[in-house]
């Protein structure tokens, strides 16, 4: 770790990715992720890497597909509407078991939506970024430092499990500056014997492909992939807990909204309300195990999101009928305030007293 510098979240992801050995970036301009691409355009040539502004998001993700097949650490970044366009390529990348990093600095939707921060692509990221049976690891950082750390580690996870990985941020995290200590450059990148680099007459040919005309073969391929997903679920869940040990009300929030929830929980504690914050860092795999453990003492859950209620589904799947699960959210690019969340916590707390 080096000396702390002030960086925007978008820039910290970019610099960290370069330090993780990423030398190929393919993208297309869109607010509010633009600084990430601009940073890459500036830095990549100096690192002997490639920054290429593609003709579209569709082309960009397919360039990522090609570069990933060729064995490179490669990434793309975009914001919500652009990520929708990438969904085709992401599905092919997952189907061909190729590693890459995709950044979504979310903005309000649907459609052209707004350009203000949002978390309304939670479902898209964790359920179906593209057609077919697949998942991908989704990280939700909440600070600029965490954006740097997760971008740095994401390539290792992508290579280890041969899967696309997403960092789901939003306009607030992308645009804000915080002090960040950047990781040291990586030098020991993994070998990729499966890559299509030319067999040089020394091995059997490699194929990157997601097509199986035989239904049984495709089923087998999907089953194999889902076995890997089970390993990911068992070993890669990440979450943070603040004041959860004795909490009666557990506020569940990720990314930017977790920062607001953190302030609200702190204020609630000052009022004597036993509130805690549970912050998923991996959205897929959802940190089921750690959340499950809170059920022994929690009397109510509150999911706080910058959307109409998406992650709350996953919270309910864990909590089931052991406690009520409430939701508070603002959407369209509106950022909830700590006061609003605190008010909701108070209401729930009053309900517990009855």
């Amino acid at each position: 770790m080096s000396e702390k510098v002030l960086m925007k979240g978008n820039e910290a992801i970019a610099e960290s990715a370069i330090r993780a050995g990423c030398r190929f970036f393919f993208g297309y301009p869109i607010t509010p992720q633009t600084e990430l691409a601009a940073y890459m355009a500036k830095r990549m040539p100096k690192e002997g890497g490639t920054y290429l502004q593609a003709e579209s998001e569709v082309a960009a993700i397919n360039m990522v597909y090609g570069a990933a097949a060729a064995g490179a650490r490669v990434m793309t970044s975009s914001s919500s509407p652009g990520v929708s366009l990438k969904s085709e390529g992401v599905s092919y990348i997952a189907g061909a078991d190729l590693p890459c990093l995709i950044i979504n600095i979310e903005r309000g939707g649907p459609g052209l939506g707004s350009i203000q921060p949002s978390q309304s692509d939670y479902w898209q990221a964790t359920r179906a970024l593209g057609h077919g049976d697949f998942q991908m690891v989704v990280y939700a950082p909440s600070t600029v430092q965490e954006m740097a750390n997760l971008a740095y580690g994401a390539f290792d996870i992508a290579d280890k499990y041969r899967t696309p990985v997403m960092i789901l941020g939003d306009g607030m995290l992308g645009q804000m500056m915080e002090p960040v200590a950047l990781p040291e450059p990586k030098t020991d990148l993994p070998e990729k014997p499966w890559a299509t680099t030319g067999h040089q007459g020394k091995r059997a040919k490699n194929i990157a492909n997601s097509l199986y005309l035989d239904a049984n073969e495709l089923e087998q391929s999907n089953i194999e992939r889902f076995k890997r997903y089970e390993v990911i679920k068992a070993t890669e869940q990440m979450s943070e807990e603040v004041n959860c040990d004795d909490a009666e009300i557990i506020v569940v929030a990720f990314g930017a909204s977790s920062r607001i929830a953190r302030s609200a929980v702190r204020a609630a504690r000052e009022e004597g309300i036993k509130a805690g914050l549970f912050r998923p860092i991996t959205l897929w795999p959802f940190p089921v195990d750690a959340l499950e453990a809170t059920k022994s003492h929690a009397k109510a859950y509150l999911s706080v999101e910058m959307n109409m209620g998406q992650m709350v589904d996953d919270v309910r799947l864990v909590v089931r009928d052991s406690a009520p699960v409430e939701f508070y959210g603002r959407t369209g690019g509106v950022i909830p305030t700590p006061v609003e969340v605190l008010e909701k916590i108070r209401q729930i707390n009053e309900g517990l007293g009855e």
Partner: protein
Amino acid sequence: MEEMRIVFAGFGGQGLLFAGKVVAYAGLIEDREVSWLPSYGPEMRGGTANCSVTLSDEPIGSPLIMDPNNLIAMNQPSLIKFENDVTPGGRIFVDTSLVNRLPERTDVEVFALEATNMAEDAELKGLANIVLVGKLLKETSFCSYETIEAAIRKAVPPRKAALIEKNLQALKLGYDA
């Protein structure tokens, strides 16, 4: 130390984002928790611009400041927009070269400074933003003078290093006003 929640607001091109960055660097140098968040929107020359800067000893929740305890207003629309958000007991710094109506609130401290004219008279055109940072420092002592000088050195990009000296002059101008 007091948590500083500062909104810098004015026109694009007045250097508000940069002024915020200087203050953020000062927080970084003194090892405090720091966040800096710009407003962003469709790119337009001459549009309004603002940024939120928080310096705190606690982890910072939302970097978007809804209740600033310090406001730096460099034009009339910004003063109108943010004046009522300032918490009671807070401070409003106004560039009276460009703002002709001062806040009417009596529960906040108002510091009026003809920052733009002062900078121009001192041949420091375009550095009214830093003049106001100097005044902010003087009235709040949010960091040491050495720290803010070091922050300026860090915040000015290397290709503009020649401007460091002028920024330091502007800082002193506001500090001594």
